[in-house]
């Protein structure tokens, strides 16, 4: 059972455009929603994260929008650059538990054309 559904699987955007990646979750116990960026041959790296008490968080060109009632969150990359070409993963973890157990989405391969 996939608890975090991510779309699209792949995305091609022109330089300067806006990239939008969407995720939906089922577990209402989730209280932490990070986005990770992974370049080929590298490990995932935290990009930005949000908690459900806010509807939006912005860090530079990256923004997370969060809709608690719809159980959806999305990553917006403004002014997309070729260097942003990577695989992006959304994730979620529940409050409580013995550790922050991340459940990842299936990933989105982003290609930004020059």
């Amino acid at each position, binding site marked *: 059972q996939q608890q975090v559904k991510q779309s699209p699987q792949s995305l091609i955007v022109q330089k300067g455009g806006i990239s939008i990646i969407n995720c939906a979750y089922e577990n209402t116990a989730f209280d932490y929603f*990070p986005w990770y960026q992974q370049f080929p041959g590298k490990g995932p790296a935290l990009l930005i994260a949000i908690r459900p008490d806010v509807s939006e968080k912005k860090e530079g060109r990256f923004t997370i929008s969060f809709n608690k009632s719809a159980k959806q969150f999305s990553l917006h990359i403004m002014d997309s650059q070729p260097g942003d070409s990577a695989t992006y993963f959304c994730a979620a973890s529940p409050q409580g538990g*013995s*550790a922050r157990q991340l459940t990842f989405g299936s990933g989105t391969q982003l290609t930004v054309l020059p």
Partner: protein
Amino acid sequence: DTAVSQTPKYLVTQMGNDKSIKCEQNLGHDTMYWYKQDSKKFLKIMFSYNNKELIINETVPNRFSPKSPDKAHLNLHINSLELGDSAVYFCASSQDRRGTQYFGPGTRLTVL
């Protein structure tokens, strides 16, 4: 300067063999993790240790055995390797059980 390091980076082996992957972090973190990334890039947690104590043990074949000799090291031993074990294995660490997880560069395991 490497924060989370793994050895080896690549591992090619025959079915039935036993192999180990090592992970070390120099961040002073208390919690370490092992993840498996399959050929479709799907990432799934396998294990987590906090100060050498096993705290997460997902549904993983018991051929996989993690060991944490100290809080800076977390190794993964795999017995009787199978074709389906081929994947990239990532180690990660966090300052504590709820902290941001920092991933290592991964170990690509290929079982022939």
